[in-house]
């Protein structure tokens, strides 16, 4: 039995603003084994980003516990990388310094940090842009840079928020390949949030279906065939996608909310 990397038990999360309270997550429990890639799928607003922020240690649950590598979280953890939807790149730093940022924040000497960042840029295939600024990068390259930042940190947990949703079909496919390759080489634990059925089926060994308001786990689906890019051409993959689509379209037997999943 492999180690548990991430463990959320009975987590609920409330956002309080001046006018109202939003119960974003309710009784959310999930375990992810070390080295396991999972995908979380659900309509926008169902609490996917909140789940990632909890695992990253940026939010504290209103109730319940979040453990990472067996320890209760008290804040961000250096080997967990969170890649947000807009990539989180700093426009005023070069590509190289963006990749080195995590190491610099950990007080690594600049020279060493840059050397490691250069390796990471090579890993994701954008080393020739090291001296450029993020505004000169395409969406796909920005995503690669965000991944390089995580690689430079030698992350063992990779949290990605809709990493491919803003990309065109061709770039998306290239990056899917990169994501699979990187995960296979580095075998980090990966939590990928998406609203794309294909992406979930391609990149999640388990697929977590969420229902919105409040976000709950509706179902967890095993997807053992996942693991290489060719999977997408198999009937197994197509069956998986069809099943996910049906589950998401069907307004959820036994559920009380009507506007549950809108895709």
């Amino acid at each position: 039995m492999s180690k548990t990397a991430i463990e959320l038990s009975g987590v609920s999360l409330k956002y309080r603003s001046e006018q109202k309270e939003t119960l974003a997550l309710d009784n959310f429990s999930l375990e992810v084994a070390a080295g396991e890639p999972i995908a979380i799928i659900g309509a926008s607003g169902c609490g996917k980003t909140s789940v990632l922020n909890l695992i990253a240690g940026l939010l504290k649950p209103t109730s319940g516990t979040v453990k990472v590598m067996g320890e209760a979280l008290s804040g961000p953890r250096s080997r967990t990388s969170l890649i947000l939807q807009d990539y989180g790149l700093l426009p005023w730093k070069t590509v190289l310094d963006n990749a080195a940022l995590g190491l610099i924040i950990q007080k690594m000497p600049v020279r060493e940090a840059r050397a490691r960042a250069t390796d990471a840029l090579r890993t994701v295939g954008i080393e020739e842009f090291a001296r450029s600024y993020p505004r000169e990068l395409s969406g796909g390259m920005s995503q690669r840079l965000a991944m390089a930042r995580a690689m430079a940190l030698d992350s063992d947990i990779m949290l990605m928020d809709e990493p491919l949703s803003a990309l065109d079909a061709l770039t998306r496919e290239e990056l899917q390949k990169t994501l699979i390759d990187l995960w296979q080489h580095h075998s980090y634990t990966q939590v990928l949030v998406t609203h794309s059925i294909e992406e979930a089926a391609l990149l999640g060994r388990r697929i977590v279906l969420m229902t919105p308001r409040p976000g709950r786990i509706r179902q967890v689906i095993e997807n053992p065939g996942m693991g290489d890019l060719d999977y997408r051409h198999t009937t197994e993959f197509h069956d998986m996608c069809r099943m996910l689509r049906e589950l998401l379209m069907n307004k959820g037997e036994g559920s009380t909310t009507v506007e549950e999943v809108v895709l």
Partner: protein
Amino acid sequence: MARFKRILGYVAATVVTLLFWAGLSLAIDNPALPMPQVALAQFAESLPAMIPHLWISLYRIVVSMVIGTVSGTILGLFIGRSHLADLIGAPLLYVLYPIPKIVFVPVLLVLLGLGNAPAIALISTVIFFQTVVTARAAAKSISPDLVQSVRSLGASRIDVARHVVFPSALPSIFTALRISTGTAVAVLFVVESIAGNTGVGFYIVNAWGRIDYATMFAGIIAMALLGVFLYEVINFVENRLVRWAPKPE
């Protein structure tokens, strides 16, 4: 190429200004507005005598700009990022910012005497307010997502300030500085012309009092060059520090 265009621009602007000046001088036909060649010849002649005044004026304005910008940036970014500080800071700024600081010249002259102090105090205050307001707005406009993703790397508040808040505000701070250069030179002139016997402002008003209009204009040219020089220095420093932003123009 860009540099060549820039120099060409300055030359063209100077020619246009001189032509306009000459035309105006001919039209008005009054010794108070001498022809440009007269003023320029006098400028060349008076320059050695003006140098000490230029140094003093430059010293006053540069020191004030540094004091005003540094303190304004620190305070502005701080209240822009801290909820609590903004609660007190924001209304205070709204009350104080619109007050024309120049009206305090008499008070400052009484309190601080006739040396550098009143000029520096007043100009730094003007620049300080401009910068505080700008820096606060810049700090408030920082994307929370960007801060989140840097925080997820384990960044402390200091790290966020250094890697996110300060660099993101830098372009607007330079814009504020550039805008306040004109005001700073104007305030300098007012302070120097009212009190003391040093600085280009004093030089101009002194010549005016002697009805020596050519010398007065030599001083005016010196003051204008001081403004242009500061403006260029700010551009130079900005180009060094803010390489990442796409340049307008």
